[in-house]
């Protein structure tokens, strides 16, 4: 083989270039064309979606506010050794007085107070109260500042406040993340918060637990439906398929409001139960604004996402396998469990991951039918963005949620392949 090419020389294309190079060029051109077609959308998604999400993630560690508002104090505090347990010296207090004067004049002293208050409650009022007097400070001739500041507010004489300031002076902080996993920076590094302040890990646990419950309910309900759709004659199956697709196409809010109406204490389900006599009129069931309401409503909303992948897998299973198993003496149950069921596992896997991913990030339905006990971590993120305005903590919680989702997304891509997602 090698002898032949040596004597005959390289194979040439029509224009005289070696065929190998000509083919490589054609392939390169093809790749370029494909990329050029994709480029506009890719850029669009990167700018309008990926960049905002990355930017939000950066907020979870960003902490420029302290060093920007109190630059001199941060510099002076760098030399202070907190482990001695003594207050910083006069240099630091003088720097703080000068910083506070500038900040109060620019009216930004309350912002840094709010930021530090997340870590050490009470610091917001310390900055607010001192800020009122700080405008009149005479930096050149006043002092000594240590006595003066402590005189204005005793908070300046508290060791803990200074330690918090020093801990949160770098421009990058792990504080929000520690907060999001119910930890805080104590005297000897990170430590768990007291039991009664641990809320976020519990909430994340509840989110995962409820998503798992919803996924299991979906598997149980979707399996028979997918089976019957795959085994009925095409015409009937198409008719029934519409019953699955209609909820899929109906607005999420319509379905949520329907459940709100059905599950209310004066709603349709309770009315029927009272009418039938199962429940007394004065002891109507509480089935909304709790975990039960969220699980029922979300199972209904996510069920089509489980049925469709299961159905497309079951459709490909040859019915003669079941017949073969039975002819070899298997009972109905053995034939199903040993022959049919193993072949449907890919469908169950695909549906489960999809439903779990969608469930874990739900916001609207838990907010409307979940009350206080049936809310998800998304609701807490929304609360911190729009009500408590603790954006750093919201971003940290979001980053944790996103990490869980991305791991599942990666698993989905490995197991099912992104290309195989089907809609209707």
């Amino acid at each position: 083989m090698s002898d032949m090419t040596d004597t005959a020389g390289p194979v040439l294309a029509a224009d005289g270039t070696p065929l190998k190079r000509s083919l490589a060029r054609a392939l390169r051109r093809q790749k370029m064309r494909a990329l050029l077609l994709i480029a506009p959308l890719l850029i669009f998604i990167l700018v309008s979606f990926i960049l905002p999400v990355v930017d939000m993630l950066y907020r979870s560690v960003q902490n420029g506010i302290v060093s920007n508002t109190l630059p001199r104090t941060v510099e002076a505090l760098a030399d202070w050794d907190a482990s001695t347990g003594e207050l910083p010296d006069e240099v630091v207090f003088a720097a703080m007085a000068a910083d506070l004067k500038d900040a109060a004049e620019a009216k930004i002293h309350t912002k840094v107070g709010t930021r530090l208050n997340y870590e050490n409650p009470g610091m917001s009022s310390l900055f607010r109260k001192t800020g009122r007097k700080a405008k009149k400070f005479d930096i050149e001739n006043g002092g000594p500042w240590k006595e003066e500041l402590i005189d204005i507010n005793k908070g300046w004489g508290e060791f803990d406040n200074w330690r918090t300031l020093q801990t949160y002076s770098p421009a990058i902080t792990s504080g929000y993340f520690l907060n999001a996993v119910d930890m805080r920076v104590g005297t000897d590094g990170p430590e768990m918060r007291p039991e009664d302040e641990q809320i976020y890990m519990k909430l994340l646990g509840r989110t995962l637990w409820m998503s798992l419950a919803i996924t299991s309910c979906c598997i149980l309900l979707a399996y028979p439906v997918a089976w019957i759709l795959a085994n009925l004659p095409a015409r009937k199956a198409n008719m029934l398929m519409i019953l699955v697709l209609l909820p899929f196409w109906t607005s999420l809010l319509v379905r949520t409001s329907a459940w709100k109406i059905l599950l209310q204490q004066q709603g349709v389900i309770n009315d029927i139960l009272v009418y039938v006599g199962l429940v007394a009129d004065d002891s109507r069931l509480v089935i909304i604004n709790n975990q039960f309401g969220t699980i029922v409503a979300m199972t209904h909303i996510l069920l089509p996402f489980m049925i469709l992948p299961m159905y497309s897998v079951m459709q490909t299973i040859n019915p003669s396998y079941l017949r073969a198993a039975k002819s070899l003496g298997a009972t109905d149950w053995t034939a199903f469990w040993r022959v049919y069921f193993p072949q449907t596992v890919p469908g169950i896997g695909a549906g489960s991951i999809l439903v779990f991913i969608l469930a874990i990030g739900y916001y609207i339905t838990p907010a409307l039918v979940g009350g206080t006990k049936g809310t998800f971590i998304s609701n807490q993120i929304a609360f911190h963005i729009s009500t408590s305005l603790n954006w750093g903590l919201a971003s940290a919680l979001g980053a944790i949620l996103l990490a869980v989702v991305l791991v599942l997304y990666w698993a989905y891509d490995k197991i099912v392949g992104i290309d195989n997602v089907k809609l209707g």
Partner: protein
Amino acid sequence: MSALPPYATTGQRVWYYSFRVICGLIFFFLIAPIMVVIPLSFNAQDFFTFTKEMLSFDPEGYSLKHYRDFFGNPDWQDALWNSVKIAPAATLLSVSLGTLAAIGLSQPHVPFRRAIMATLISPMIVPLIISAAGMYFFYSRMGLAGTYWGVVLAHAALGIPFVIITVTATLVGFDHSLTRAAASMGANPVTTFYRIQMPLILPGVISGALFAFITSFDEVVVVIFVGSAKQQTLPWQMFTGLREQISPTILAVATILVAISIALLTTVELLRRRSERLRGMSPT
């Protein structure tokens, strides 16, 4: 399963019928909550349950007053207008960019295909609250928050995965020798695209467009964060309505939205069958 054989035992018979009953109940669970909204929206009272008059089919028990409220109330009308203005613009943006990219992705040699696909599908996977928060922070800095175009851009990004999925699915069955045949007969790439490729993938493109439309039309989380009161859409108005004092007008709106979804679903189903026929695949 398809039919009960004549030699089936009693146990098999019982299982066969009880299985059908179970399936019937699950289908009922799927469809009943949506259907229950429709009669309730004609309630003459401001209740969220069936009144005695309604159950005895007394005409007195029914009325169109919630619909009158929907069409007469400026809040609801503004919300409807905003939805109607935002959704088509977002759809147009995601369909035009999405179709181009889907054609690019279906070429035989695409470098980093998997990574690109994963990126383009990600808006569907990332929890909405995270997208909403990120867009809110980022768009505020760009001066886009609270503007019409800000909401359109955000919604277009959310609709893109659906366009990509449906159009690539149609392109899987596309016979590339057709474009080569057109080229061999002297058609330039643009003519080939419009005369050969486009008519064949059109059903997929339209389904993708309908998906993108419904995504934007139903979307509430992102618009709450990115939009301002001026961009209050129909779902947003419903969300506030459900959260604060729940008014029966919501039932009328819900019924109208169900009617729209039925229309869209029918269109998509017809298109899907047509596309399968065009590509010579047997209807399933």
